[in-house]
């Protein structure tokens, strides 16, 4: 699997994502600068966590308008897998690759802690190695992860099995509607999630619950 990580000036989990990708694929991912016009020919594009352009105005709003995102959108339309984590998820909703919006956490505070997350959907390249209903532990670290979509959109997401991850055990850290932690686009090649599976791949730091996500992608996209 060939992969790329998009780097904005204030991305900060880009290295964390790259480390995992190198570990599971054996090859360093392309690190693609936000000002470039083209993402190289890859199987997976990761839009990483961080603060892109400082996340002034709204998280991900300015990044969604960046030059590189035009090509990310084009490639996503052609079926290339795109994974947006945290700030990456915000950027994907702001660029309309995913529906809905991520609002300020209901308690108005940045929240950084491990949370239990249930795997709701295994029919995707991203979650094929998990079992349905499995509860994993991922860290969240965000101030605006409160997922909002109107009733109609929510109903579609639910009905089409596009809600991949949900906060579990009553621990919704941000007030997301329907406890949504991660969703798929219609074609199921684009996923965004607020928690950080890329930082849950080293047993030293906690249970390595994120590894199946990346290993599954390698199998599915190889």
């Amino acid at each position, binding site marked *: 699997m060939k992969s790329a990580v998009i780097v904005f000036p204030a991305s900060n*989990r880009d290295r964390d994502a790259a480390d995992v990708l190198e570990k599971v694929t054996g090859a360093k991912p392309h690190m693609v600068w936000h000002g470039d016009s083209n993402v190289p020919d890859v199987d997976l594009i990761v839009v990483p966590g961080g*603060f892109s352009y*400082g996340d002034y105005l709204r998280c991900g709003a300015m990044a969604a308008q960046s030059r590189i995102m035009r090509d990310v959108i084009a490639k996503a339309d052609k079926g290339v897998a795109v994974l947006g984590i945290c700030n990456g998820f915000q950027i994907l909703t702001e660029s309309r690759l995913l529906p809905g919006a991520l609002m300020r956490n209901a308690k108005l505070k940045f929240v*950084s*802690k491990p949370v239990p997350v249930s795997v709701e959907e295994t029919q995707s390249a991203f979650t094929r190695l998990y079992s349905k209903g499995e509860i994993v532990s991922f860290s969240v*670290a965000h*101030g605006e992860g409160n997922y909002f979509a109107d009733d109609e959109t929510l109903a579609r997401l639910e009905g089409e099995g596009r809600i991949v991850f949900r906060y579990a055990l009553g621990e919704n850290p941000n007030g997301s509607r329907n406890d949504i932690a991660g969703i798929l686009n219609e074609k199921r090649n684009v996923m965004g999630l607020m928690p950080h599976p890329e*930082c849950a791949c080293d047993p*030293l*730091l906690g249970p390595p619950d994120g590894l199946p996500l990346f290993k599954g992608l390698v199998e599915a996209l190889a």
Partner: protein
Amino acid sequence: MTAITEQMVREHGLSEEEYARIKVLMAREPNLVELGIFSVMWSEHCSYKSTRAHLRKLPTKGAVVIQGPGENAGVIDIGDGDVAVFKMESHNHPSFIEPYQGAATGVGGIMRDVFTMGARPIAMMNALRFGAPEHPKTRHLVDGVVRGIGGYGNCMGVPTVGGEVNFHPAYNGNILVNAMCVGLARADKIFLSAAKGAGNPVVYVGSKTGRDGIHGATMASAEFNEDSEEKRPTVQVGDPFTEKLLLEACLELMATDAIIAIQDMGAAGLTSSSAEMGDKGGSGIELNLDSVPQRESGMTAYEMMLSESQERMLAVLKPGREAEAEKIFKKWELDFAVIGITTDTKRLVVKHNGAIVADMPITALSDEAPVYERPFTRAPQRETKQPSFDATRDVKASLLKLLGSPDLCSRRWVWEQYDHSVMANTVGPPGGDAAIVRVQGKTKGLAISTDVTPRYCKADPFEGAKQAVAECWRNLTAVGAHPLAVTDNLNFGNPQKPEVMGEIVGSIEGIGDACRALNFPVVSGNCSLYNETNGEAILPTPAIGGVGLVHDVQRIASIAFKREGETIILIGETQGHLGQSLYLREIEGREEGAAPPVDLAAEKRNGDFVRGLIESGRTDTVHDISDGGLLVALAEMAMTEKIGAELDLEGSPLPMLFGEDQARYVVTASSDEALRIVADAKTASIFTKVLGRTAGDSITLFGARIAVADLDAAHRRWFPDYMDGPSG
């Protein structure tokens, strides 16, 4: 040009004698720009005029020290060609006036101190002191400061991994916000601030200059009074995004060999950075302010020289390398300008609109700055006999109350607002004795802790400061680290008062003694004086930030009981010292008695023994005993993984359970291993006592049963409940 009046001199915080000296050094009357420059360079904040003579007594050398105090941050050797670069700094006054921005820019400032030396910041700590919880301002200040620290650090992508929070009425009018940054660099890639050589371009990079915080440095050195809120000093607004760009751009430029010297523009901005670089390099500097990138129109030379706009750096490049450097800064969309040149005159010459607006000998700003041997009186000896207490009080109720008190309750509310996991190297969440961050790609890691117990320092500045160093060393040891060196942040009241000066002198001596005994040199630090409102000084607060080396991040200890059926061993001797204890304050309602004495030889002996146990894999569960004493330590160990303990204790219970004797640890091990540990300790003349074993979901002692879940609830509740209360 405006003639200087007596009133202008006073408004610049300079005394008559100081002004007289200035005239001698200048061999004429200074103009207003020059007066402004003198006022900031001779302020307490920049010149350390009250503390300099005493700071010389601190041990600053050692096998691991590569760069001691005097540079932007200290540098220590951590093996394999790697170095740790670190410093702590205060942003007390600005945080009181505008908590969010004050704390945020404090974080930004200390990060610049570290990356200006060529290091990438890898961890942040924060040591915070607030007024009484009941004080009408406290809640708002806690909220703003914590959000500010998170807001800046999170955006920078540097994990905030630990710190301290205390509440005490002595901070009602002067909160303390001390932030520490630890960075990582290669030993052969350290950048210093000495602008050596003449004819080299002086370049300005980062944000534009505005009229921010003019006179911030003198403000930080002037005592508060009721109407200082009315004076509306401008507080700077932080821009973490620009700082992130500055960090990346500086590190990119540092990968070339174009830089001769580099220094961040902190307090007193262009003035102090240029004067200090010239001073250290033994050179002169000529600045042309017309080239300074400006945010506002019509700025005067005075304003530009004294502006404290954030996210700016000054560098001296090798001649001919300007274009290369400019290209890097343009890529990161930052301002870049050549604004001057180094000379061989040892003078600071400032030009504006074609005229020379300041021309002064640099040594007058540095070496010739005043140094005061201020008169001091030492704190009176406190009563050392055990304070009285009610021996019939219920242990369970006391423990629950202590764990739910403002100074002992869980800080989760605070650290959950900090991204502590970014960079994927933070081992475990905050909440342990010391934070551990792995060195990227290696098996080793750094342990970090900040400590001071101000109530001890008030009772006895010397013993209290010793205790701060000892506790920091002990916290690093308790996770399995080898303590290497410290930074300090000396927060005190008005040094012109002999009692306060006595606290300063006593504290510095205490730090010195402890650091010498523990081979724990001081490599950087900061002084924040005049923390007084209406003549009321804060508690003496010499915060100590320590860094230790963990050889293998797999071989560490944490405070959680991990398995049932393990033997619990107390290491170190208990006298039951209740003076200045939290038990006495929270349960008996009295702050009195002597601070616990620190036996540095016992600290070293006990600590080295415990570290040996961790490194040889004989225990992975260790907690030092500090605030609240033994029973609080045991409760903290029980709460993390919800495993209780059966304790077999006898004798006089309360002082034994809640006394705050130093040099003590609790460790657990399998019963066989525990026997061997006790035997080995005996051989090494180390006092141990078997307390009982881990078991069940309660702590049982003297027939009482305390459910761990109840302890945990009390421990977690206070902070969120308090913060949900009414603001105002």
